């Protein structure tokens, strides 16, 4: 599914134009930790709606979901959305949190994946579908991502935890460069 398409405006009578504009502005806001991605590309921006208030002004309601529960960038994302929309002339902006369904790396758009690769980062593979209890993994991960720099498949996990909650650290044993991989969750 294309993340951009999810962030479309509702067409409340008389605010269709405002809705389109608000969705455009919100759709351009970038992730504070991975600025090569917009919040829409990351799948964090879940919706933008415009409501005509009693005083005739347009209020924007934007919905975002955390990638990880403790993601400390949520406040910054909220502030960035509010400021960009304020700058675009929307005085009233409300940012709501959506917890269900939980964010999945599958929601990163194709454009987002290309942007990650262009920045030397490895994009997540598809999240494995499973039923039943979560299996314990004591060995290295079953599939290692290819090196985003040289394309070699010979890469090794350094740590499943990186500089942000959503990334793991790998090293390419071909070109010897370390790289960050966005985890499948």
């Amino acid at each position: 599914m294309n993340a951009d398409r999810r962030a479309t405006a509702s067409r409340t009578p008389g605010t269709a134009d405002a809705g389109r504009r608000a969705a455009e502005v919100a759709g351009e806001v970038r992730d504070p930790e991975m600025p090569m991605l917009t919040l829409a590309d990351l799948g964090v921006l879940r919706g933008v709606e415009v409501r005509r208030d009693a005083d005739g002004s347009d209020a924007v309601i934007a919905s975002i979901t955390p990638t990880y529960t403790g993601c400390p960038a949520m406040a910054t994302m909220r502030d960035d959305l509010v400021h960009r929309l304020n700058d675009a002339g929307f005085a009233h902006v409300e940012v709501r949190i959506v917890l269900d369904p939980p964010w999945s790396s599958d929601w990163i758009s194709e454009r987002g994946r290309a942007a990650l690769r262009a920045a030397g980062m490895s994009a997540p593979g598809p999240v494995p579908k499973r039923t039943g209890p979560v299996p314990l993994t004591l060995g290295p991960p079953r599939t290692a991502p290819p090196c985003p720099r040289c394309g070699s498949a010979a890469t090794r996990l350094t740590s499943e935890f990186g500089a942000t909650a959503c990334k793991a650290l790998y090293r390419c044993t071909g070109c010897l460069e370390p790289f960050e991989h966005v985890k499948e969750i």
Partner: protein
Amino acid sequence: MSDEHGSVFDGLLGGDSSQWAFGTDFEDPLSGVDTTTPAGVNPAELAAYCLMLGDDALIMSQRLSEWCSRAPDLEEDIALANMALDLLGQARLLLARAAAADPGVLPALPEGSPVPPEDALAFFRDDRQFRNVRLAEVANGDFAHVVVRLLLFSTARLALLERLRTSRDQVLAAVAAKGVKEVTYHRDWAGRWFLTLARGTEESHRRLLAALDALWPLRGELVAAHPLERALAGAGVGVDPATLGEEVDAVLDQVLAVSGVPRPERGDLAGVGGRTGRDGLHTEALSRLLAEMQVVARAHPGGRW
């Protein structure tokens, strides 16, 4: 300094926060989320249950964050900090959910205090009001100690969260759905290190066995049902930890078998008159932990951070 400008810092707070790299103001972590208590559930009981799960995460997070800058290498330092952050995020939502279900759980604060509900619960409750299991609170030891503690904790928490995903409470179900993804990584990390230390040097093996021996008696509390947990499980909102025992044991036995470490034979740490962490009966370690965690917030009950 004039009266109108009592503090040079006054101008920094409030108004436009765009001057900051990060947002300065508090946000409601449940903004726009439906926090209606499910039909037929006592809000006070739901709140107490959220405190149990939230306090487990909060206290464990605090102990993990004490590791920051002390791990054997940078990768493990980052891993421990990441796991602390995941659990802090879970704690924040769970404590906020407790306050939303029953504002009666909130400790009294000076009128007009800007402290948000989840912070009031974290920083202004006394030790007897915390409902975490005692495994989360005991003082840190060496690296083997944190590996064993995380293995025991995350194995039980993952099994619990997997079931909690079908909770009738929307917030609990959502926290669980995301928490399963997070805690899966925590359990794998702990399991791998357990194996590494068991098969490592004589010294790492010795330390691992010592940590396992010290922490094993605290394991039982993770899979023992408090009456409140049983009641909420019956209402389709919570999970009865007693139903997790077999699954938790299967995972732990798998790790022990692969590592060549025999299952400890130590019994459970007794409570006080049958009461344990879930009842607010803790070890001395929790009081010390809270003293450090709460001191600054308590010194400034009207402060904004």
